[in-house]
């Protein structure tokens, strides 16, 4: 594809021109209860041609297929001239690189036949049923994909990359005496099927989650100290910090974390690391060709930096951070989080629980939703903490409230950092959906409203 891309770029008369072309091979196997419901394969090919004219701004054309790239770019230039920008649009400079990253895959999921994937999915479904007599329904979704990307710009950037990813998502329904509960769990990894280490632990955990909820009592609403497991802490910090640690996206939060502001205690250090090895959202370069780098957003409780693409970096006088990500095949790249982390502190879970007479331990986050600076985290699983120990399961646990107030209630961070390998995705306004990963240790907050969604 190199020749047609470079040829189209060379013909463009815009100030800045860029073509991103992507081919996505994917297979999906869905087993519902004991039946295969879907076995499918797809090949999507398409991309985005965009041009920037300093006086009028951006014009962008999304397209299917690989034909007539010069025409797509010409149309993007026309649209750029039809736009209107009051301030001249500039792009922060980046080192120009030509990178060939499309190496042969040692564990290519395209080499594994669909019958084998079906067999694995059916085995997992059988395992879920066998784990507990109260399991009344299951859903097993296997998905793999290989994404080949070509990126060329009029500045001379050329990148060719091949990225495989696999994921498994499980849903278990448990029933007893008319009570019905569900539990979800997933695993994802960058690479082929052998990259899904630890998948054996997933089915029993999901079944346990559903069965445990059958006998869980609703949490008594009130104010408690709350300890979040690493998965929940990561999800909270992703939603609370990453979504406003970059300029506003179309249709999304307009608020931005103000630089230099203290938003939490000294034990709170949050960043985003697209270079973390082996994670699904990791990348060498972002979708504008900027070398990805680890960015600290909050250092010891104070806002230190934002996530940027080239345009937002130039507008704010910062360097691009390599976080320009396209949420769809034909979407424009916006600054988005990749692998958000909460830096480890000191001590263990036991240390965080110590001294809590009555509190709530929250794990397996179901959703983090927000509107403005108000948001809510809903737990899929939770336990009471009594006299410094984990006690009975409870349900209906939700924490939330005003974002900065919640960060201000962080009072301890443990040292037991782990990356969460769940197949998490981030939806953000019109910018689309991107896979994300979070990493965190256990985290403790004080005086948090629990249940009914209060903070």
């Amino acid at each position: 594809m190199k020749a047609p891309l470079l040829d189209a770029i060379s013909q463009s008369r815009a100030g800045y021109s860029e073509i991103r072309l992507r081919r996505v091979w994917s297979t999906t196997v869905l087993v519902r209860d004991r039946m295969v419901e879907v076995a499918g394969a797809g090949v999507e090919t398409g991309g985005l041609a965009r041009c920037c004219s300093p006086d009028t701004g951006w014009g962008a054309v999304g397209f299917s297929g690989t034909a007539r790239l010069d025409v797509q770019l010409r149309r993007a230039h026309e649209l750029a001239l039809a736009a209107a920008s009051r301030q001249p649009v500039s792009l922060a400079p980046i080192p120009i690189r030509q990178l060939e990253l499309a190496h042969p895959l040692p564990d290519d999921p395209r080499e594994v036949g669909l019958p084998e994937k079906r067999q694995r999915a059916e085995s997992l479904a059988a395992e879920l049923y066998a784990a507990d007599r109260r399991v009344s329904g299951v859903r097993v979704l296997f998905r793999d994909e290989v994404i080949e990307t070509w990126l060329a710009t009029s500045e001379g950037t050329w990148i060719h990359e091949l990225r495989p990813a696999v994921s498994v998502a499980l849903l278990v329904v448990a029933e007893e005496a008319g009570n019905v509960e569900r539990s979800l769990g997933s695993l994802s990894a960058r690479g082929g099927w052998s990259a899904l280490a630890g998948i054996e632990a997933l089915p029993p955990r999901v079944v346990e989650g559903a069965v445990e909820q059958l006998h869980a009592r609703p949490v008594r609403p009130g104010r408690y100290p709350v300890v979040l497991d690493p998965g929940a802490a990561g999800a909270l910090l992703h939603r609370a910090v990453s979504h406003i640690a970059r300029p506003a996206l179309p249709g999304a939060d307009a608020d931005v974390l103000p630089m230099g502001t203290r938003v939490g205690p000294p034990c709170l250090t949050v960043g985003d690391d697209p270079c973390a090895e082996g994670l699904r959202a990791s990348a060498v370069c972002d979708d504008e060709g900027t070398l990805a780098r680890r960015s600290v957003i909050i250092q010891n409780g104070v806002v230190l930096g934002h996530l940027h693409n080239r345009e937002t970096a130039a507008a704010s006088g910062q360097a691009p951070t390599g976080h320009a990500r396209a949420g769809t095949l034909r979407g424009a790249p916006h600054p988005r989080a990749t692998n958000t982390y909460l830096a480890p502190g000191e001590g263990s879970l036991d240390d965080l629980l110590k001294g809590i007479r009555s509190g709530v331990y929250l794990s397996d986050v179901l959703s983090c939703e927000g509107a403005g600076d108000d948001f809510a985290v809903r737990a899929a699983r939770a336990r009471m903490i009594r006299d410094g120990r984990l006690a009975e399961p409870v349900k209906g646990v939700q924490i939330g409230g005003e974002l900065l107030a919640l960060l201000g209630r962080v009072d301890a961070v443990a040292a037991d950092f782990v990356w969460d390998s769940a197949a998490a995705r981030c939806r953000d306004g019109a910018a689309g959906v991107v896979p994300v990963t979070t990493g965190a240790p256990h985290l403790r907050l004080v005086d948090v409203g629990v249940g009914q969604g209060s903070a």
Partner: protein
Amino acid sequence: MIARVLDVLAPRVSGADLVVKTDDTLTVAISSDGDSRVTSSRSRSSHLRVAREGRVGYASTEGDDAGELIGHALAAASAGGEIELFLPAPAPLPEVASRSPQAAVADVATLDGLARALLERLQRSDRRIEVWGERAAGSVQVANTRGVLAAYEVTLAGVGAVVESIGAGSAPPCRVHSAASALPALPDIERLVSEVERRLLPPLLDSCPPLPPAMPVCLAPRAVATFLRPLRAALAGYEAWLGSSPLRGKLGERLFDEKLTLVDDPLAPGRPGSRPIDDDGVIARRLALIERGRLLAFLADLEVGARAQVPSTGHSWRHPAAAPRVGFTNLCLSPGIEGRATLLTMMGRGLLLEDLQWNGGPNPLAGSFTCRAPWAYLVEGGMVRGRLDGVVLTGNVFAALAQLGAIGNDSTWVGALCVPTLLVEGLGVTLR
């Protein structure tokens, strides 16, 4: 491509069908500082299903390589689900307006003008506003090895805005939009403006007398569209016929308030879900789901129908690189006779909810919910007194729909849903 694919497959499979969709979308977005950006997106996707030796497989592509598409579909069928699939035979297509010629050719200047018209009507010094205008023009071709070969064209056009009041005590940003086959006209824009003013103008109530644990609530159309989510999930596809829907096995029973009538109508003219035929090649038809509180039907496509031994209702949707799904077209809740003002008066002391921040919980099908209502307004004596901050709503959607206070006559299209204001008695309300 359609004929080539089906000709190759016909002698090798027991059945095959193919959906080819094209889309040409043009968007003009104007940011809060007045800058505009223009984006165009053109796509063409093909979705093929084959039935072979009792198994069904899917493949999709955005390219023109028919051989690759066929190869992937046959490979998928070798691992596909065991199902006896009966493809539909050709039949006359019903008339339905799904395309507007003006919308199909709307250019940057037209969309920019519409977006700026909305912006001008909303603009105030204490607001941050983003607006956009968009039109999509496309085509759908559906064919199968039994001889179905149907095609229709679609357009979808609209304007929208995200409006945020700046300053202490202001409401969270509100997002409004309109979407239909035709370009929005002045009344459509005025409707959006009215909604924004209703949501942003009432002042925040600094102090509120204690609220009882349960109150009557008026759900405005945008809130109703969100509130109906569990019901929609419970009425559709596998879950309804064979899965864990609470409505499963209850067809014919009176489960809801007799004021409730719900219809899915693909033949409603010029709406986002309007179409003459579904993606399985089944002729589209109006389907009464609930009539005067009695549950009459569930949605099915060919595969769910085959598994449940029922006919398809023509509700198949296929998208590239995604599993086919059963989905609604245009869902319409029949209006009542009272105006919105009458509903507010009937409510006495209660809450008006313009929108909900949905949080369906671990078992969305069960209907239980705890959700925030950032756009909640205290109503007393039929008058809106002001906005309340921190309202959390709890209850069960199915229980609420079984005992409705009243239904308004103000049916409003929210995307592909046409819903009026609902007066619901006794939802749990807490203030944080």
